[in-house]
């Protein structure tokens, strides 16, 4: 954490999908970095490109998708240039992922124990017996109350929260440097969400694992992370510390998103809304991607594409309003 060397640096990353109906530019010119041990959120609505970003980092973008531009530096090693085999090594040891829907993310015909042991064996090259011991250790670490029972269960026999704990155990058992969590609690109830977030936070600190936390829920962001990147229409429109974002959002989209989230304190007054609809990545507007919905848009926004402007060290915004 002390070293200034970032763990992950994404530079000008663009991933496009070449479908039968034309090219879908899912993400465009994404640049950001994550320091060791840091928890960073990637916030956006559906179609904003946040999942494609995570899949690109994992090297799991599949045909017809393709990384068309940019570099992904992990420990100064460019991941986009790696062979499948070398990527597998990175995925085994250094980067892990937790998915949104833990039911479909686990193979229905194998038991939880099989999943854990298989993963631990390939990751740590240990004997089956040792792997089993490690598996139990991890089931306890993710606070599963009855590890023996869970170990022998099949995925469909567990509750959503339990399954997600198992996923986390599988992802963290190799002590990865980076964990990508793609909406890990969206499918869960709030009381369970709280528990899962807690487990993730505690374990990340314990293992000094950085987390890229992908979500659409601003509440979760405020609770979990130090730094936020807001995505819209396949681009990062604002990067900021959590506090700054919540107190003084710069981009009109971030501002709108914050205001349209119902809070319990405010009562009967009307919610502010962002008009219009979330654009489909296949059908993005010209100029600033947000201009059709932006209350502050002016002439230039329709044609001119804003670049990411550095406001200060930790605050960047992609908006023509902040051009000096």
């Amino acid at each position, binding site marked *: 954490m002390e070293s200034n060397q970032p763990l992950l640096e994404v530079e000008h990353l663009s991933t496009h999908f070449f479908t039968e109906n034309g090219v879908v530019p899912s993400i465009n010119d994404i640049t950001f970095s994550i320091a060791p041990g840091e928890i960073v959120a990637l916030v956006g*609505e*559906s179609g904003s490109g946040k999942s494609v970003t995570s899949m690109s980092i994992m090297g799991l973008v599949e045909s017809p998708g393709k990384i068309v531009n940019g570099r992904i530096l992990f420990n100064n090693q460019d991941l986009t240039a790696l062979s499948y085999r070398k990527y597998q090594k990175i995925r085994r040891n250094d980067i892990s992922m937790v998915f949104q829907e833990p039911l479909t993310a686990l193979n229905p015909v194998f038991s939880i124990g099989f999943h854990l042991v298989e993963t631990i064996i390939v990751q740590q090259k240990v004997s089956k017996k040792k792997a089993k011991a490690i598996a139990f250790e991890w089931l306890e670490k993710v606070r599963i*109350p009855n590890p023996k029972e869970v170990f022998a269960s099949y995925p469909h026999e567990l*509750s959503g*929260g*339990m399954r997600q704990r198992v996923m986390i155990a599988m992802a963290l058992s190799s002590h990865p440097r980076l964990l990508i969590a793609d909406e890990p609690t969206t499918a869960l*109830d*709030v*009381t*369970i*969400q*709280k*528990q899962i*977030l807690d487990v993730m936070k505690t374990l990340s600190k314990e293992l000094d694992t950085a987390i890229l936390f992908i979500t*659409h*829920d*601003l*509440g*979760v*962001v*405020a*609770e979990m992370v130090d730094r936020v990147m807001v995505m819209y229409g396949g681009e990062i429109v604002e990067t900021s510390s*959590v*506090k700054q974002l*919540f107190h003084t959002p710069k981009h009109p989209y971030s501002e*709108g*998103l*914050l205001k*349209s*989230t*119902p*809070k*319990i304190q405010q*009562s009967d007054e*009307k*919610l*502010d*809304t*962002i*008009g219009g*609809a*979330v654009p489909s990545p296949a059908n993005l507007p010209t100029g600033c991607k947000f201009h059709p919905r932006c209350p502050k848009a002016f002439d230039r926004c329709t044609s001119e594409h804003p670049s990411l402007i550095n406001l200060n060290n930790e605050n960047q915004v992609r908006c023509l309003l902040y051009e000096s």
Partner: protein
Amino acid sequence: MTAHTSPLLEIKDITKSFDFSKGWMKKKQQFLTAVNNVSLTIYEGETVGIVGESGCGKSTLANVVMGVLPPDEGKIMFNGTDIFSLSKKELKNKRKGFQMVFQDPSSSLNPRMKVFDIIAEPLRAYKMAVGERLIEEVESLLTNVGLDISYKERYPHEFSGGQRQRIVIARALALKPKLIVCDEPVSALDVSIQAQILNLLQELQERYSLTYLFIGHGLPSVHYISDRIAVMYLGEIVEIGKKDVIFNNPAHPYTRALLSSIPVPDPDHHENRPQESYILGDMPNPTDPPSGCKFHTRCPIAQDICKEKSPAPASVRDNQEAACHFPIMEPAAELSQEQRASVY
């Protein structure tokens, strides 16, 4: 908000179980009691929110209220009439008065029908308008939910989720109902779209003096739209009251835990907030619910009696009832350190 005059909908002691019995001649009896002895009265012009986690029976309750599922016990009185005592034809007539908005707008619209036909369908079924009148009626409904009248010639797939939900709402309004049951109407939508739909529902309520039964799991949105809130846990209403009372002074430990679990979109809040109570563990298996108070397995303040005796709903304060042997009387903010520790 209009004064709460007369009851519009009375849910009386509703119990609904599903049979999951196994084995030869159903040797192993197994029932899932989705809704257990629930009573709730909704007055004209108000919005009652029902919150609870998945599997708490809120959607089953909505289906019973709509007359889709017959209850095992209890009555649903709409405007003083028991809807399950009506004949099929009478029920059809009565149903003009209460309609439903579903969770997933892409599943509640027939992909093969144009928007016009979708909205016109109830009007045609009740022969309420034909020809020119029908067109006018549909167009005015579209305008009312904030859609352009030219959209009527399109198919549902041409719309975004928010717009589809507007079409669903327009269809529900077509029969000029008094009550609309909203079953998680915003949970399938994007964050920035949810607010639009919540505002629309509120506007329509004022304009047509509608009554809503609003079911949701997103607590902030339920809080935003409701006047009163009922909290459900494993098929029972554990607490009900005015929304601010429920949110500021929850008396049932489950409500309290639920509230403290909501992620608050405010980073300062997390710094200042003491480590508040939240419940450990999972929801028990609903086919084998705990004895006594169903929450006792996860309750931080449970005592022996909770395992044996099921608590009856009792008034805690004005406009607040809780089903708990040991309701917490102190406002959440005033809990002493020590009490907080015990709650945890």
